[in-house]
């Protein structure tokens, strides 16, 4: 025959046990919330960076400035003759 006494928790013990359980639950929920916030922030940062990468290169005007001593006129075919300041003759082919 087995003899023994059934251990029954007192109210005080039971309450402290429940409190610890509740604290653990709260901690788990807080950790989940923190993980969620960190993930959301990481995604937001990644999205902002991706958008910035797309728009980070502004379109600057490319318009080459003439050099000081550059030739006034250059023709694709033939030659240029200057007859006076700002008057030029283009020899674009053989005249007939």
């Amino acid at each position, binding site marked *: 025959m087995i003899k023994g006494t059934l251990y029954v928790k007192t109210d005080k013990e039971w309450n402290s046990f429940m409190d610890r359980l509740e604290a653990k639950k709260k901690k788990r929920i807080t950790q989940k919330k923190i993980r969620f916030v960190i993930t959301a922030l990481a995604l937001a940062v990644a999205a902002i960076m991706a958008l910035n990468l797309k728009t980070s290169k*502004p379109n600057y005007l490319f*318009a080459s*400035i003439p050099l000081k001593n550059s030739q006034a*006129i250059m023709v694709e075919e033939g030659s240029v*003759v200057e007859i006076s300041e700002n008057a*030029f003759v283009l020899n674009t*082919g053989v005249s007939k």
Partner: protein
Amino acid sequence: MKNKMMILFLCLLLPSIFCISKGIERIRIILQNRAVSSVAPRIMEELTPSGMVSIDASRNALSISDESAVVDKIQRMISELDVPARKFAISSTLFVYSNKPQSVFKQDNKLIDVADFLNTSDASEKYEGIVDIKEGDKGEIEFKQSPYSLSIELGGFDPWERKIRFENISLKKKSENSKVTIFSAKANLKEGVETVISIQAKSPHPPFRLNLNPTILPEIKIEKEHP
């Protein structure tokens, strides 16, 4: 060990003393409006033999080191160059010499012949046109009641030399289905000055004279009126 440290110290000190004694200054400028590669060649023309320009294309920045007077001048230049695209009115007059004997454009003595020709002969046809184009843009002058048109692509403007770059000037003639290019050229023309370009006859085209006058247009700011 001490000797090595001394040599290292001198290596660092001597170039600094050299730079200070020559008044070498170094600046870095980030351009806001213009591509650095379009401005740098003109800036390099202002440098002394001891000067140097380096380009950071990814940040659109210029690093300049030269004598302080030159650096100050370049800074002033950049402040005038690094502006939004300026607008120009390109006015043009086209003279067509279709009824003129083309022998005046003989290869020998061409200078005398053409100068005489420009001074004495009258054109059989004359057309006028104007177009407003911004730096770096393209435009076209359609000469009214004529088969001719002038295509223009503008480059940049040098405010000190008052020269405007024409990346392309093409005189075209409309034929049945397409346009035939009579001549095509690149040019650096004076702003506010009329440039005369005489184009030799090339069969089947007659000789032409093209007068081009690029004029800078003032920037007009429209302010909203308060009710």
